């Protein structure tokens, strides 16, 4: 076990965990930030996507020991009132079905729009292909990303 000081959603937080613990479980079990979801544990589904210094990463593959001195943002931290343009677009298009993958989808989408404010269909496919939606909301996600791109 070791002490780590982490910056998550702009707050400084301390945890005492094994250095190999992935950020996914630090967030979920130790910091009660459960919006970041467990899906596969091998970076194949994207449900656990968070931002590390603004880039979308799979938190199931990010050990806590590599997260010190970085800025981490989770679904709980992308806006104060749930009114990020991507969140608003998700509601406008009524995207979710079961909803489980959507936090990861939104984290990938927000990272995409930050680096590419008006993505093409191909850009969206490339940026989002790591995020599985088992319910099949892909066409709505694409439409929502385009709406968010217009309003941002």
């Amino acid at each position, binding site marked *: 076990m070791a002490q780590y000081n982490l910056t998550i959603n702009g707050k400084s937080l301390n945890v005492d965990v094994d250095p190999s613990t992935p950020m996914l479980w630090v967030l979920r079990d130790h910091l009660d930030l459960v919006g970041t979801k467990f899906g596969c544990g091998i970076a194949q589904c994207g449900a656990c996507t968070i931002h590390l210094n603004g880039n979308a990463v799979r938190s199931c593959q990010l050990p806590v020991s590599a997260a010190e001195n970085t800025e981490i943002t989770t679904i709980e931290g992308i806006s104060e009132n749930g009114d990020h343009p991507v969140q608003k677009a998700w509601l406008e298009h009524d995207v979710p079905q079961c909803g489980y993958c959507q936090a990861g989808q939104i984290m990938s989408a927000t990272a995409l729009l930050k680096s590419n404010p008006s993505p093409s269909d191909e850009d969206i496919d490339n940026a989002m*292909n790591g995020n599985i939606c088992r319910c099949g909301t892909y066409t709505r996600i694409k439409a929502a990303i385009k709406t968010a791109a217009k309003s941002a």
Partner: protein
Amino acid sequence: MTLIDKKLNRRSFLKVSTLAGGGMMLSFSWLAGCKPTPEQVLTMPKEWFEINSYIKIGENGAVTLFNPNPEFGSNVKTSLPMLLAEELDVDWKNVFVEQADFYPKRFERQFTGGSQGIRSGWVPLRTAGATARQLLVNAAAQTWNVPATEITTNTGYLEHKGSGNRAGYGEVASLAGTLEAPDPETVKLKDISEFKIIGNSKKNVDGSKIVTGKPMYAMDHKVEGMKYAAIVHPPAFGMKIKSFDEASVTSLPGIQDVFSIKLFKEGFERHAFDTTTFPEIIAIVGNSTWEVMQAKKALKADWEIAPESNFKMSGWGPDVSEVKVPSGLENSSTHSEKMAEYITKPGNILRKDGDPEGAFKKASRVIERTYTAPFLAHNPMEPINCFADVKGDKAIIYGPSQIPDFIHGTVANSLGLEKENVQINLARMGGGFGRRAYSHHLTEAALISQRIQAPVKMVYTREDDMTAGVYRPTYSATYRAALDENNNLLALHVKAGGIPESPIHANRFPAGAIDNYLAEGWQIESNITIGAFRAPRSNFIAGAEQSFLDELAEEMGKDPIEFRLELLKRAETNPVGKDNDYDPKRYAGVLELVRDKSNWSNVPNGISRGVSAYFCHNSYVAEVVDVSIKDNQPVVENVYAAVDCGIVVNPDAAANMGEGAIIDGIGNAFYGEMAFENGAPTKRNFDTYRMIRHSEAPKKIEVHFVDNKEDPTGLGEPLFPPVFAALGNSLYKATGKRLYDQPFQPQLIDMKNLRM
């Protein structure tokens, strides 16, 4: 207003002293939509008054509606309360929706599966809304001392024109809550023309919680002092635990205990939905998910071949049956060989019209084709998990279950507790697709908690989830058609089976449309567990049947839609045989609608097009799939669907569900496959089990609903089965090759120089 023969169970309209839930899970209908200004929205009331099982009203007129059914993504949590709100006659923006817990004393059918949520709730939930409205009217009549019949309601207000009295629901809710509930049989329901909420799209009531990452799933649940548990199950079907070395994990950091649990007591008569692959598993308990998952990898365990076993099963129909679990380590290659034997071996006759044998003898030409599909894993995004807190003689379970009623007795029996002392609370589920109809995980978590006498959250890894069974079966179907010298269809013969069940629905189309018709079924026993998977059986047989009809139409020189319409005309005007369980007119209606919406005969340049139609879960669906070829591989461009599911309660959410079913179908048709080597599943996670991804989804999907006034029927499943053949038939047009075996993708990769 119409009076409907409801034959309802009265318990839904009675009040029970303790409220389910407790205000923890409120969802605000308006949060999901445009945010209204504060004066438009009612704040939380100071006090709630319970009107009936489904409805409570605050003194300020705010309304809480309980969604009785488990939510796994089909949006019942929004659309079922819409039925209540319609007849209660309230403003949707003043509605709070609360997820009901499993509470059989209050609610009748807490069941998500078989596409029956809206269909089964259609009369009972509207009646619950209407009886509540009547109670409010009666309360106003008593208060104003006027006849109840003279009082009208309008979106949350009561009015008596004669006396000039007017009041909000909240003002009489306290009194209404004390009055005798009216007999539901005497309460009138609105005429369709009077609907204000039904038929108007409402946003998902949990939308804002989902996009902000609020805890909603069992996976997110946590209480003070909670422990975490991982499980280890045998590596293959047909194996069981021999021994395990506790010392290999108990000294690891954060690990508290390791032990095995047996799911069923000796001699327990299992319910039909008690399907579980491994009745004994190993549990590792510790302080965090990561620590128990690490210990899982370190655990030293030995496995052995399980001998043949038997158990008694009941709960599905009146009979108790003896179920045999054969011994052995099975292989997919052997499965294929055994299934292929049935191409020539006879099956059990399920339906016979006319003289099919004679017709085949007379035929100038016989076309025979065999279709196969593999086992499929459900792979819901939220892996199997469950929270349980068992102390003394009481158990609280918070878990993802499509049908808590079916596991309730089993959990109680395994714990040795009274059913009344086992409370199951319903978490939102991260997908289900049939998998969570089998709720063995509730028993597992409960037994672990009972053993450690502490609250616990048990979490399967993705590998546990994917390799623990309860799959869609593998199937094979052989279709034969007899044609005369003028290419007239003389007879049709289908023989289909699977491991371990047959996919045949013998009385469905094209039965009833062909003079000489023979349907045979067969099954091969196996120890691989299977269960309902979105549109069970239909999800295979539709693809086989509709691919064969497509090929048959081509052989007969007919347009594939015209050919189907001709058959349906025959079934409508002069049906063959009895018990045809579809309405040929409604079936034809969706084909005509999809022909119109896709502009069927006007195929765009560079597009290849296929069609398919199917009836299941009381609904009719026809689909057209357009593909193009890019970089020598097919790309799904457009999908057009025409759906007849009666009245559509929540149209945009219904379209979303349809789009998802289509994408699900395309994904499984191209990539879906689970295989076995020596009993072990060959795929364990998404690196090898290929799921459809963003770039592979269709560019455009249009879902069109037939506009009619029929009572609502199924929706979550019926759009899934037709897409397999619509895709296969379009791929044939694009590639020149008929695809008979799913998944399609491996065969397409091998193809060179695709057409176009």
